[in-house]
């Protein structure tokens, strides 16, 4: 069946089985490799994308469930000021080790900061505990989220 999906601001078409998870449509049909396969069971967060700004596990979402929602992936999040700040903070802090999970981490962080501009450690833990980093870069993930939050404050001229 043919699905027309709004992805990172562009309309894309995929002729696939209705049950095919969005992750595999993105990766293997539309050649967007940034969303990663880690567990296939919604346990690791490597596949997180946004659906109308809300974080979802794309490995658990059938393509038929996307509907008219706007999909944002790690390839597109940098087009938003918030996403760009987070990516920049990730680089400043040098979070990355292997990097495999970091797309999902950034997508979860972007969803957190969109609703909680100045998160506490507890806010960060609650929002990010669904994302596994097997290299254990968690201390730097926390630092980068706080840095991105502070950059927003600086942009706005307030703290």
């Amino acid at each position, binding site marked *: 069946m043919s699905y027309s999906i709004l992805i990172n601001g562009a309309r894309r078409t995929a002729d696939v*089985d209705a049950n095919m998870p969005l992750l595999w449509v993105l990766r*293997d049909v539309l050649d967007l490799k940034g969303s990663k396969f880690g567990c296939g069971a919604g346990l690791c967060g490597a596949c997180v994308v946004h659906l109308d700004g809300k974080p979802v596990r794309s490995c658990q979402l059938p393509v038929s469930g996307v509907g008219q929602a706007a999909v944002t992936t790690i390839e597109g999040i940098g087009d938003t000021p918030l996403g760009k700040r987070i990516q920049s903070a990730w680089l400043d802090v040098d979070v990355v080790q292997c990097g495999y999970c970091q*797309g999902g981490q950034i997508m979860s962080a972007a969803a957190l900061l969109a609703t909680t501009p100045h998160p506490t450690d507890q806010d960060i833990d609650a929002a990010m505990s669904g994302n596994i980093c097997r290299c254990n870069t968690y201390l730097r993930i926390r630092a980068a989220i706080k840095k991105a939050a502070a950059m927003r404050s600086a942009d706005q001229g307030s703290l």
Partner: protein
Amino acid sequence: MAAHPTSNARPDMNAFVASRRTFLKAGLAAGGGLLLEFALPAMPRAAAATTSAPGDALLGAYVRIAPSGAVTILSKNPEIGQGIKTMLPMLIAEELDVDWDQVHIEQAPLDAEKFGRQYAGGSQATPLNWDPLRRVGAAGRQMLITAAASSWGVPAAECRTESGRVYHGASGRSAGYGQLASKAASLPVPDLKSVKLKDPRNFKIIGHSKPGVDSPLVVTGKPLFGIDVTRPGMLYAVFQKCPVFGGKVVKANTDAIRSLPGVRHAFVVKGGRDPQGLVDGVAIVADTWWTAEKAREKLEVAWDEGPTATQSSAGYAETAVQLGKVAPAVSLRSDGDAKSALARAARVVEAAYSYPFLPHLSMEPQNCTAHVHDGKAELWAPTQNPGPGAQLVAATLGIADSDVVVHMTRCGGGFGRRLRNDFMAEAAWIAKTVGVPVKLLWNRTDDIQHDFYRPAGFHFFKAGLDANGGLTALTDHFVTFGNGRQVAASAGMGAEEFPAQRVENLHYGMSLIPLGVPTGPLRAPGSNALAFVFQSFLDELAHAAGRDPVEFRLSLLDKPAPTSSRGGDARTFDAGRMRAVLKLVADKAGWAKQVRSRGTGMGVAFYFSHLGYFAEVAQVTVARSGEVKLDKVWVAADVGSQIINPINAENQVQGAVLDGIGAALGQTITIERGRVVQANFDSVQPLRIDQAAPVEVHFLATDHPPTGLGEPALPPAIPALCNAIFAATGKRVRQLPIDTGDLKWT
């Protein structure tokens, strides 16, 4: 064993050093400019498994300088998250004397003739490359100076370099490297041994933090990993193996599978006995990976499960307890007379320790893309060990080594799992069968249930203390795994294991339990288990002796041990270096001033592995329910004179410490009926962010060559945690993973 765990990926370092004849070739790069190739021609043939693709002839561990002055440096080893793609070029760029932002870095191809062995393992890249790669850079700099001096008719000795330019002070002349590169390339190459290296005080790149060179691509989701590879006309494969290790296919409903929509091929693969190569299974090849994966749900296979089906973790534990009651089958070390000394001791402490099988859980599941045609194989593989992988593919397909090309991709974690290349053999075989490019991808259950596990182990200790709290005797009966007299991979222990040679009467013995489960190196192999066992038992002894755990350890390190080389390593374990980091970490953690209260405690441990000296203090808070909360870890480390890339060094240490904590808190692999019980991240848990506590890292610079950081921070983290739990609760953790149900207190 601590410093040299069993691994087929580990070259014999002594042989390596003895046979190493570095030389440098210079020539004109394609497009003009200086090309420096650094080569290790005497490397064992075992590593020379492939040839470059057409057009790759000029690529090597080289420096290429374009007429514009842009510098390209190749990084030779696989990147698995250890930061090597950034660090190795830093060594060359420093001595070449170029600015880091002038440098472009590329992954080198697999080419043993140019690079020697290219692998990620044993934290060895730093000690093996610190000197040779700086000399490559220095030789290039010298040639550029010579080119400039001869152009200007001035003595080379009057010239200096800075930021990619050669200067002659007296005449005020200068020229950029880009202008000089063509002429420099025509000059004879200086003797690498005689090139002048910088005074470390003048380093501008080494010792200065350089963020990961690929990180901008990572954070924007660019395709970098093995799983991201696509080839024209590519199909996708899954490979179902027998859940029981060593099981064989009797029959499978491949005809029915082949008739499913989107499925192109389904066939039985007959493999061999070695789990490091191709084993029996059923391949399903489809238009998308998800289609192949869904088809697997309909797959019905009759297996001949074979002899391992009778094995279980419970059975191993029962056998271990029985073996622990009798004398060890093999003596590893015997000093003095431990039996008599125990009989004379004022106090005898006995304890049994054990730890489980562990998986690697690299975030990127095992995968490989292969195209086999016309008797040649081309593979794109996230592997830590591409040379042996290429050889395995050649042997599996029955083609020449020279007909296999392996492209190294970035690896989504390694931790030792990708030192084995079984997934490459599978991809190659499936691709050969179907004739078009195929991407084989394992699902998470495949990954957890077909690993090469950190072996479980059991230690039965006795120790004697004299009336003054001195340690007079110690015995360990190590019950581990192996078949016949062959110890399973990564399941051994060295005769030098600390506190050997520091206890007058000491006996280490070993007995083996037959094992059908594949084992292999996991980050800090051997050490990641032995540190827990020995540093925990030493803690017990300190408390039994009524002595401070830091003071007790320092007193053992103070004892003279004139021949204490460790684990077959040529370099001597230097107790003075360990004393220094132990004192430093105690100071930084405020050990002497700690406030003791029920439910909160500090624990200390040290360990020497991979040439690194690490002492760590953990502080925990244990709730009355037994729930463990890590408050903080302090680390003091001596890895020599120079931290090459500080920002990554700290990241590696913090990650390794938390990796150890995560394994101790949440990970076990259970064998039942010859198969693994755990299947995904719900039943075997890596650490998550809400469990991560600050890790404060202190490097102590000493006058020794720099050594690696991927592994040695991990081993002491586990006993530091367990010893802290004892301090908080009075409950001794003698079995991993930590069972918080055992830690309740009132």
